[in-house]
């Protein structure tokens, strides 16, 4: 049989790529083999466009136990405790079927974490939707949110935070990124690398169905006659089975019977078996007749490419089968030996006593294509918007407009659909700068934050890349945590376009520089390319998920102001950078010019100073300043506590809007008691940090002397209406 050009294309491969396949095999491939190659060589599995750039990211330091390359990253948080975490995208499936797409996204990332021997302790997400004004947005929002909740709630892992944004750039390509965080003993981490010859390869979990089989099956001629029956179907998640799989795996992991373990994620059985073998430099032989199938008459092609959820592949040590099987039976899960490791260095598939595929493992992994794609430097607009160029607007009107905008509204409508406290270790739920999760039975905790800034990245990818890392670092510091490491999900358009590739390269460069400077390594991540519809790419949207450590829970900090009479100071200099600000976007629909600059030295100094002030109990509440600027952050502190603020009039009233809505980076708001002011002055001077007093805490009223005065209740309502109103109108 000769593979046709149509078949090559329908498998998402290029003709040159197929040529290379033939060379590697020394013959034509059969259709099953072509399917396997297409699964392994596609962008998602092979990282063929991104690999050479991702290599530049810093991935190691003294606390990194496992960097990128495994199912998830692993860091050391002391006392034998390790944190295992990763973020992953499920953009395309969520657009097609929001509930199931988001749900299975959560399921997939959970498996990435518990395959490594970690018990998941928290879930986070970053979700981006198109304009709320287009009809499908509401449906997508509802579906995605209930899908995320539906899965996480059911498995019993708290969903403790994330971010939700709306921007017309996602009108036809939403983003759903899910992050999972687990806790493990650092001496009991499990990896996917196979070891030893003739070891049993075991399939556990759900049965294999025709879920999410590569769209290519439709077009490939073999299926033409029965194409209706073979329609690729959407993956449906089964959180109940996931919970069983989680418990069964963790139970098995208590002893030493697992040599290696890998979840079946994208490209299911194919990628899991190939990855295990390739890392172990071994071969693997499977008997496909043994695969537990959900439907009758499934073909080898379908079995190998199915993306059925809630499945794992395990390589077991000798003589452990009986014990292991008992555990999986207890949890009512399939447990089948489907093959063994070999010294052939090939993937050999048997079906009905025939070899149906035989491919050198290296051809599927190391020898997969890698591209140094052409890219263009992004043009950065220098245009500065001056306050005198825009229409007059009152400060309070501008503030209310921002607070009640979809992007800045309180997210309770969402978070009330997530169980945030199951497992009883959630110390800080969403609503603050970071979520804080206690390490079970200990007096320490981790902080988690997820951040992105697509507008900044679009305006200047490199600065934007730096900025999100810094913002993430700030969010962790604001709750009193020492930032440790990040995971990242890079959502971009079509890498074959030079400008998109340019955005990617520059964002990565920015992330790299920030991570290096802050000693904030990248330990895991995911790249999602081809986020485009009708050849319109989304804004570059790298998402950063960061982890910080509170080694003493008593140092936890929140944004909630504490006592009338206390002062609020701002740390970091305010210049009043309005370009790309929420102020211009929400009030004037202006989205122009460069994003605010990032100064690493100030960022680090300011951050470390804040941490010190928290440790020394001088800081009573802390909130970083991000989208919306100082006034928005001040109102968030007030709304959170229900206490008002008397905000001091700026020195130069002419630039009040710039001062209060500018999005200059590296700034924090800190509540202190009045009698500590002298101490603070000295401290700041010593550490060469700029600060000024901006407000005083008071009861009930949020006001600026002689300019405006708002009741906290009203402020709260402005911030809390949007979601309810939006979802009330079906």
């Amino acid at each position, binding site marked *: 049989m000769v593979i046709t050009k149509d078949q090559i294309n329908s498998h998402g491969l290029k003709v040159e790529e197929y040529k290379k396949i033939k060379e590697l095999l020394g013959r034509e491939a059969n259709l099953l083999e072509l399917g396997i190659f297409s699964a392994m060589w596609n962008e998602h599995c092979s990282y063929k466009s991104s690999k050479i750039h991702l290599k530049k990211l810093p991935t190691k330091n003294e606390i990194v136990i496992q960097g990128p390359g495994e199912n998830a990253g692993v860091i050391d948080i002391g006392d034998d405790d390790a944190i295992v975490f990763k973020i992953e995208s499920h953009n395309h499936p969520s657009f097609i079927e929001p509930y199931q797409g988001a749900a299975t996204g959560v399921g997939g990332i959970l498996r990435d974490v518990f395959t490594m021997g970690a018990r998941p302790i928290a879930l986070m997400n970053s979700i981006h939707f198109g304009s709320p004004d287009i009809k499908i947005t509401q449906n997508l929002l509802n579906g995605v949110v209930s899908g995320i909740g539906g899965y996480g709630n059911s498995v019993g892992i708290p969903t403790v935070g994330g971010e939700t944004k709306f921007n017309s750039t996602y009108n036809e390509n939403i983003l759903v990124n899910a992050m999972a965080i687990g806790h493990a003993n650092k001496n009991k981490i499990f990896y996917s690398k196979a070891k030893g010859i003739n070891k049993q390869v075991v399939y556990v979990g759900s049965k294999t169905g025709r879920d999410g089989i590569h769209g290519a099956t439709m077009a490939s001629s073999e299926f033409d006659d029965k194409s209706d029956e073979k329609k690729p*179907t959407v993956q449906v998640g089964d959180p109940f089975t996931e919970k069983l799989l989680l418990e069964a795996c963790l139970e098995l992991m208590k002893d030493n019977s697992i040599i290696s373990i890998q979840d079946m994620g994208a490209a299911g059985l194919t990628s899991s078996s190939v990855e295990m073998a390739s890392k172990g430099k071994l071969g693997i032989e499977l008997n496909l007749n043994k695969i537990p199938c959900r439907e009758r008459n499934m073909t080898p092609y379908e079995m190998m490419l199915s993306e059925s959820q809630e499945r794992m592949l395990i390589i077991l040590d000798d003589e452990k089968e009986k014990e292991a099987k008992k555990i999986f039976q207890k949890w009512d899960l399939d447990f089948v030996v489907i093959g063994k490791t070999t010294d052939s260095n090939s993937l050999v598939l048997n079906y009905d006593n025939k070899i149906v595929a035989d491919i050198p493992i290296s051809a599927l992994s190391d020898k997969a294509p890698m591209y140094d794609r052409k890219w263009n430097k992004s043009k950065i607009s220098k245009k500065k918007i001056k306050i005198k160029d825009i229409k007059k607007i009152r400060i309070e009107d501008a503030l209310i407009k921002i607070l009640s905008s979809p992007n800045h509204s309180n997210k309770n409508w969402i978070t009330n659909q997530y169980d945030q406290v199951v497992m009883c270790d959630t110390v800080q739920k969403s609503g603050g700068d970071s979520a804080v999760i206690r390490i079970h039975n200990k007096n320490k905790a981790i902080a988690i934050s997820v951040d992105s800034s697509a507008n900044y990245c679009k305006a200047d990818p490199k600065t934007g890349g730096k900025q999100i890392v810094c913002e993430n670092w700030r969010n962790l510091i604001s709750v009193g945590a020492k930032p440790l490491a990040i995971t990242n999900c890079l959502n971009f358009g079509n890498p074959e376009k030079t400008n998109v590739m340019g955005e990617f390269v520059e964002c990565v460069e920015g992330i790299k520089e920030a991570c290096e400077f802050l000693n904030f390594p990248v330990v895991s991540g995911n790249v999602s390319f081809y986020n485009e519809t009708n050849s319109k790419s989304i804004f570059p949207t790298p998402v950063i998920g960061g982890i910080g450590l509170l080694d003493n829970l008593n140092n936890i900090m929140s944004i909630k102001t504490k006592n009338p009479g206390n002062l609020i100071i701002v740390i970091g200099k305010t210049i009043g950078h309005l370009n790309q600000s929420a102020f211009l976007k929400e009030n004037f629909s202006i989205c122009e010019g460069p994003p605010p600059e990032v100064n690493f030295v100030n960022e680090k100094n300011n951050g470390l100073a804040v941490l010190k002030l928290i440790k020394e109990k001088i800081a009573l509440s802390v909130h970083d300043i991000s989208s919306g600027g100082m006034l928005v952050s001040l109102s968030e502190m007030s709304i959170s506590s229900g206490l008002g603020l008397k905000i001091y009039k700026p020195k130069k009233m002419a630039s009040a809007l710039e001062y209060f809505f500018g999005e200059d980076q590296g700034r924090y708001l800190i509540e202190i008691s009045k009698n500590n002011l002298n101490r603070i002055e000295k401290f700041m001077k010593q550490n060469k940090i700029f600060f000024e007093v901006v407000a005083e805490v008071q009861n009930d009223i949020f006001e600026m002397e002689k300019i405006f005065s708002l009741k906290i209740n009203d402020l709260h309502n402005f911030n809390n209406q949007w979601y309810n109103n939006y979802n009330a109108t079906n």
Partner: protein
Amino acid sequence: MKFSVTVTLKKDVLDPQGKVVGQTLKNMGVKNLNQIRQGKFFEIDLSEENSTKGKNQVKEMCEKLLANQIIEDFKIKITE
């Protein structure tokens, strides 16, 4: 005019509910069960005397709200 609508998962789409229910029935001693699949059922009462018109209206409801056509099929019957 009254209609009944059944919404079922497409063949080949995983039915986690059906799976659990089937297993439970087996555990309860039903030995001859080959398969059980779970779906949704709606009873709809419309002020509409024309059956074609009514049926079309119900069809539209299914397409727009009651069924998720990516994973589900639906069937409409006139009951009264």
